[in-house]
């Protein structure tokens, strides 16, 4: 079983650099799926501020990634989640999954981002141009998206 790369960081990331890093020197990877979550400028949003639970965050992502590796034959997996202040247009989260064939990489990528939304301790606060701010509320749709991966041990 592979060891997923997991990073929680304030700095941004580059999809191309991370993709190249995951596939460098490999000739067994037939499919590389990626998901990049970006900060939208909804309702005059000036920035998103992401808070997390240091220690538990990394452990929770590690369990989710290990579950993905147990369910699908992955040959590579990278999860990067940013914290701190993020401006509209900037990336927030990256999921990369590599496998011999496309189905495993695509399905594992969707599984990981669905679980990251509901199973990792991050909280988003929206800051607006007028100086107000509000905490983002959890969405029932996200719980439903996670629930479709029935039978998870998580």
């Amino acid at each position, binding site marked *: 079983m592979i060891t997923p790369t997991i990073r929680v960081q304030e700095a941004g990331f580059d999809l191309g650099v991370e993709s190249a890093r995951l596939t460098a020197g490999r000739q067994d990877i037939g499919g590389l799926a990626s998901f990049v*979550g970006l900060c939208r400028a909804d309702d005059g949003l000036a920035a998103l501020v*992401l*808070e*997390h*639970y240091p*220690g*538990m965050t990394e*452990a929770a992502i590690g369990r989710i990634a290990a579950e993905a590796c147990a369910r699908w034959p992955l040959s590579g997996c990278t999860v990067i*989640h940013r914290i701190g202040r993020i401006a509209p247009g900037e990336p*927030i*989260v990256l999921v990369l999954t590599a496998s011999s064939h496309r189905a495993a990489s695509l399905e594992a990528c969707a599984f990981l*981002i669905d679980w*990251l*939304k*509901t*199973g*990792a*301790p*991050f*909280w*988003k*606060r929206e800051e607006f141009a007028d100086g107000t701010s509000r*905490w*983002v*509320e*959890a969405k029932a749709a*996200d719980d439903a998206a996670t629930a479709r991966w029935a039978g998870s041990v998580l």
Partner: protein
Amino acid sequence: MRVLYFAWVRQKIGLGEEVISPPPEVRDIAGLVAWLSTRSPGHAAAFANARTIRAAVNQDFATPDHAVAPGDEIAFFPPVTGG
């Protein structure tokens, strides 16, 4: 016992963490919430609607019936919104 607060739970209580010694009859998360609610108006406000609060015991998600013990790291926070 160390208790951590995140997001609006932290803001309402006005603390990121505190070290507490609840009485022995506090045996689980639900009991701890009831006891913490009496500590200050901020605590009471944070825990006013228990359905909106999630908990972790030693960095693992925990339900209200999960046992708590001296030496545990407990955390309270809103439903998560990452990704």
